[in-house]
């Protein structure tokens, strides 16, 4: 279902009018901006790290098909079962198939944006399978049926009182508390049983190393390790673009990922999985599955400008620094991934006819591009998608041309005609100057919050022409 400009506007307004959302996001983003700055005190060193990370990702992408085959080969050799899915439907069916083969009706999940992309929880629930989120933020919003509003901190739009209310409502036996440490302990107690009992654990993948067939996971809480260690079956889902070539590529990426995302030197846990339980080992899953999801990535891959979108390592820095995201929050975007990266990735996956409004909801201030650890030129790609949105030619992007409006196209045609004919331009501007008293004081939405700009009596052209006449 297409997100119309009007619907987007409604979502925007409801966020802007909600003081809780405004405040929660403002203080959260300010904190994340500060933390990132303190993680990288040396600007020159930071630029070198960004360059290196960008090169690692670009290089891996340039060899993607070979690396995917190498990854598959090494994973398989190590006992990890590799599955390929072109669409989210296929991916969901693969996961369902694994669940059904084991007669499993419950799954415990670590944080995975790809599983959000798949709509996995909803799909499995329709087949009588319970999917429980174990990441604290995801757990909280699952209790109230909401989608994540940020890719690193899913419940960033909730303050502690809102969380306390949710816990009181859903767990009436637990005494009310809005103390964050106590809430955290309560979540620990609730979820420990689930880790213990779950027949299947699901995770995402931060980096998939082709050289050794290793799946790498980043986390602070320990729920990811729980999901990938205790249940007898572990299913990992990932987009195909997450492959890196070598093990030696991982430390610099980990470094800049964590610094950019949370400002930490490293996350509490970095979990590197290369096989199921080996003979003699007492614990660890007996089966490990890797689901490789395409869902439009191979199409994005083919455009030599837009391929940069696929470098993303999902740190969230772009949205943390975005003045628009900070004010409208994540839900207003309606896409799996919000913010600047979401505004270029999601319309490419779902089509500009569905999400073509997102690339326009930016001032192109460049804050995102300046902080992206892998130097994705987000403003440039936003501009490109605006072009694709209104272009008549059959573009490389689905839904190209769908944003073109005849009235707007006509306005730009007129504008360019006037501005490419200097004599016409000077005539129009001198007339505007003369008639400026007739300019209305109210000009649409501009003047709701600003005074109307005042045309000068004489343009610079006229003043310079007069000066030249005198000399």
């Amino acid at each position, binding site marked *: 279902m297409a997100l119309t400009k009007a619907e987007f*506007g409604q979502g*925007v*307004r409801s966020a*802007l009018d909600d003081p809780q959302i405004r405040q929660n996001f403002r203080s959260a983003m300010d904190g994340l901006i500060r933390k990132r700055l303190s993680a990288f005190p040396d600007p020159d060193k930071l630029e070198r790290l960004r360059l290196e990370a960008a090169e690692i990702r670009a290089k891996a992408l340039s060899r993607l098909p070979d690396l995917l085959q190498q990854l598959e080969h090494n994973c398989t050799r190590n006992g990890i079962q590799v599955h390929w899915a072109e669409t989210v439907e296929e991916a969901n069916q693969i996961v369902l198939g694994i669940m059904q083969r084991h007669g499993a009706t419950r799954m415990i999940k670590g944080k995975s944006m790809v599983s959000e992309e798949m709509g996995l929880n909803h799909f499995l629930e329709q087949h009588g399978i319970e999917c429980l989120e174990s990441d604290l933020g995801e757990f909280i919003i699952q209790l109230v049926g909401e989608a994540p509003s940020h890719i690193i901190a899913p419940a960033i739009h909730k303050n502690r009182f809102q969380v306390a209310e949710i816990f009181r409502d859903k767990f009436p036996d637990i005494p009310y508390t809005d103390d964050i440490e106590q809430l955290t302990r309560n979540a620990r107690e609730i979820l420990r049983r689930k880790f213990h009992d779950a027949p299947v654990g699901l995770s995402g993948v931060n980096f998939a190393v082709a050289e050794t067939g290793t799946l790498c996971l980043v986390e602070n809480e320990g729920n990811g390790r729980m999901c990938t260690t205790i249940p007898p079956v572990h299913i990992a889902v990932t987009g195909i673009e997450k492959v890196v070539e070598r093990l030696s590529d991982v430390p610099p990426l980990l470094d800049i990922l964590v610094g950019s995302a949370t400002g930490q030197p490293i996350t509490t846990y970095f979990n590197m999985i290369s096989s199921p339980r080996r003979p003699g080992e007492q614990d660890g899953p007996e089966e490990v599955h890797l689901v490789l999801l395409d869902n439009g990535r191979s199409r994005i891959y083919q455009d030599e400008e837009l391929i940069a979108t696929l470098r993303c390592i999902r740190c969230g820095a772009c949205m943390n620094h975005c*003045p*628009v995201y900070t*004010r*409208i929050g994540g839900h207003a975007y309606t896409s799996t991934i919000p913010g600047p990266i979401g505004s270029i990735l999601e319309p490419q996956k779902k089509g500009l006819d569905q999400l073509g409004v997102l690339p*326009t*909801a*930016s*001032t*192109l*201030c*460049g*804050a995102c*591009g*300046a902080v992206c650890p892998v130097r994705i*030129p987000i*403003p*440039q790609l936003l*501009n490109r998608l*605006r*072009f*694709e*949105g*209104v*272009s008549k030619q059959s573009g490389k992007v689905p839904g190209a041309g769908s*944003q073109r409006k005849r009235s707007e*196209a006509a306005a*730009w*045609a007129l*504008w*360019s005609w006037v*501005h*490419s*004919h*200097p004599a016409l331009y000077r005539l129009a*501007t001198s007339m*505007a100057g003369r008639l400026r008293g007739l300019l209305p004081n109210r000009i*649409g*939405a*501009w003047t*709701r*919050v*600003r*005074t*109307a*700009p*005042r*045309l*000068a009596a*004489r*343009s*610079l*052209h*006229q*003043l*310079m*022409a007069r000066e030249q006449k005198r000399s």
Partner: protein
Amino acid sequence: MSEKTREYPETPGRVYFFGTCLIDLFYPEAGLAGIELIRREGVEVVFPQGQTCCGQPAWNSGYRDQARQVARAQLDCFQDPLAVVVPSGSCAGMMRHHYPQLFQGDADQARAIELSGRVFELTEFLVQVLHIQLQDLGPPTRVALHTSCAARREMGVASDHLQLLQQLGNVELVEPERKEECCGFGGTFAIKHPDISAVMVHDKAAAIRDTGAEQLVSGDCGCLMNIHGHLQHQGAGLAAEHIASFLWERTHGAD
């Protein structure tokens, strides 16, 4: 994408001045001031009457053919190998960083690249090429500087803005909190997403008022129109000027 290091030429005898359409229509005095600041250093300024707009509004809206048509007309105006000085981070950024892409594969690609190599934002030109020395003749005042996103990130001239204002002995220079955050203008963004733009300009205006400045100065007229328009709407008494106007007024005495 953005300017980190740039090699600057020696002082030229003669330069082009690209006024920008916003200055042309709404702040022509800023254009004159910019020209005077350059002339005062003994540099001749050429103002081709054929200039109109850099084409950015259409470029940012996705209408690249229309943007190119207008940009091509500018290529025709600035053909001599002279520096093109632009009193706007945004328009300078368009010509310097986006013209090459706009003309990719076009017959005028070489011309566009050549032009882009000699485009300078005004404060950058005054500091890095002309090395101007300013003598403050005005009374003590507190001034808030707003540096546009394009000036900061595309052209890398935030330090040049600061350097010029810091030369003025009677000016107490302040910058608002969250100075790096966008004011919400974004050209057509203010028209297409007015609600988001309104809260952004509201926050920016509040931060500027909180500095206690008597006056707002910026190198970009789009931002100026946006922020000053909001300040006026709110009845705040702050004056607002383009940095060129401010610098000229403070330093040219009664001549």
